[in-house]
């Protein structure tokens, strides 16, 4: 780890990509994500990397596909409407089994919505967004430091699974400033790119010929292809679940499930409630897909726990997954806002007290 610096989340995400050995960045500016592009416009030339601003997010998605298909480590950043435009390419990239990292700094929606923080793209990220049977591995940072750490593992994970990985941060993650340290540099070359890259046989360590495609006209072949993809998503569920448990050693009366910066508001509320003698626990999913199903199921099942609340800056998206995990063992409620005003610790405390 190096010297501590003070960085905006968007800048830190850009720097983390460079440290993670990603020197190919394609993007289109959109608030509240544009500082990544501004930062990398300055930094990429310094490190011999490339930043190309596409003419639209649709183009950017396919620039990633092309570069990844040729074996380059690639990433992009955008915000909600931009990710909608990229979603077709994400489906193609998943179908063709190419690695790529997408960062979504979510703003309020639907449509143009607003520029303030939101978590309204949970469904889009976790349940699809684009067409067909694919999944992205989705990680949700709660701090600038965690955004950096997730960026550092996003590239190796994308390559391990040959699949798109998404870092899902709300607008605050992109805009707030926090002290941050960067881990040491990774190598710039995906170690397993012989498995998929169509980059010319002279660059190949093996004689295997690669074809980058997502078209399978034969029904049996397409079904087998989807079974192969499914097996990767099942393996993610076995190997990649990450979550943080907060105050779950206590005999909590209520369990919060919350992610991203919203979870930090919840932590303050939990600390304040503790001072009032009310114990509340929290599971914070760090991966939204794969979702920490067992952890939430077990935490909800603790004898002291009477109810579960999904607290999210959306109109109730993650709550559907929480209900799925709790399996009716406890009542599951939802609280959230999605206009851009982040719920305050006092609001969360009030909601929890009303529920117990």
């Amino acid at each position, binding site marked *: 780890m190096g010297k*501590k*610096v*003070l960085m905006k989340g968007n*800048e830190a995400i850009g720097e983390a990509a460079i440290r993670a050995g990603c020197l190919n960045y394609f993007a289109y500016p959109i608030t509240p994500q544009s500082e990544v592009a501004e930062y990398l416009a300055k930094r990429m030339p310094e490190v011999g990397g490339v930043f190309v601003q596409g003419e639209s997010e649709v183009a950017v998605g396919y620039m990633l596909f092309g570069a990844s298909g040729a074996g380059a480590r690639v990433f992009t950043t955008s915000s909600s409407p931009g990710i909608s435009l990229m979603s077709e390419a994400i489906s193609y990239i998943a179908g063709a089994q190419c690695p790529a990292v997408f960062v979504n700094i979510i703003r309020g929606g639907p449509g143009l919505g607003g520029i303030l923080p939101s978590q309204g793209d949970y469904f889009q990220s976790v349940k699809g967004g684009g067409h067909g049977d694919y999944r992205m591995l989705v990680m949700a940072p709660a701090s600038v430091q965690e955004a950096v750490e997730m960026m550092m593992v996003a590239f190796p994970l994308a390559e391990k699974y040959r699949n798109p990985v998404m870092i899902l941060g709300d607008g*605050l993650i992109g805009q707030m400033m926090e*002290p941050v340290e960067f881990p040491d540099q990774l190598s710039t070359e995906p170690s397993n790119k012989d498995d998929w890259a169509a980059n010319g046989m002279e660059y190949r360590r093996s004689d295997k010929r690669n074809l980058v495609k997502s078209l399978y006209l034969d029904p049996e072949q397409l079904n087998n292809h989807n079974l192969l993809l499914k097996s990767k998503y099942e393996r993610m569920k076995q190997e990649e679940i990450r979550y943080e448990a907060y105050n779950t050693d206590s005999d909590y009366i209520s369990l919060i499930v919350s992610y991203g910066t919203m979870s930090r508001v919840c932590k303050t509320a939990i600390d304040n409630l503790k001072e009032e003698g009310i114990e509340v626990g929290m599971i914070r999913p760090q991966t939204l897909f794969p979702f920490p199903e067992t952890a939430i199921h077990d935490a909800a099942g603790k004898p002291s726990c009477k109810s579960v609340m999904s607290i999210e800056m959306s109109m109730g998206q993650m709550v559907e997954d929480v209900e799925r995990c709790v399996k009716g063992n406890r009542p599951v409620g939802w609280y959230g806002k999605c206009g851009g005003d*982040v*719920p305050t610790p006092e609001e969360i405390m009030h909601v929890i007290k009303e529920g117990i």
Partner: protein
Amino acid sequence: MDASKNHRIDLKGIVVIVGNYGSGKTEVAINLAIFEKKAGTDVRVGDLDLVNPYFRTREARTLLKDHGIDLVLPPKQYLYADLPILTPEIGGLIQHPGELAILDAGGDDVGATVLAALADHLRGRTVQTLQVVNPFRPFTDSIDGCLKIRREIEAASKLTVTGLVGNANLIDDTTPSDIEEGYEFVKRFSAASGLPLSFITAATDLLHRLDLGRFTCPVLPINRQLVPPWRRSEPDY
């Protein structure tokens, strides 16, 4: 905590706050406004940040109002618009700055461009343009980086930087030695640029751990106002 025990911050008339992205211009502007108001100066503030979507002076509008500080903002319905709106009232603020008018510009040359649009209003008036420097930020961790930002801001704003503000901090992780190190850095920048050091800053709760006598400039105490929603802004002094 009274930092003026050492040296007084002596600013009057129109003071423009510039600097690179995230150097802390807005936190400095808000705290300077309240500090000067409490010292008996009539203070007005103009939010000229047209490039940053979050954490702008407008977030502290209630606090400034409570202190009787006039804050000039775009019309309410455009406060959260992603548009470069410059309210004509800024022109009025420049014409009638009162004892002290603080103009808080956006970051980098891009954020300072708005000042060039005010050139007609600013022509013939005495303006102090202060460059805020935090050496813990990317691109201003070297003297060359600070000089480059200064040149870019001057070219974009059509103003000449006249002084420096040392704002070395890592927010909650700041130690007294970070502030001392930052002071030494900004002194070197001052020597290299020929620009006087107007003041440095330090979080109020760090002041008692600093040897204020070692600084040859005033120290503005900072009570953090631009905080994320899980934190409470600090009560003013």
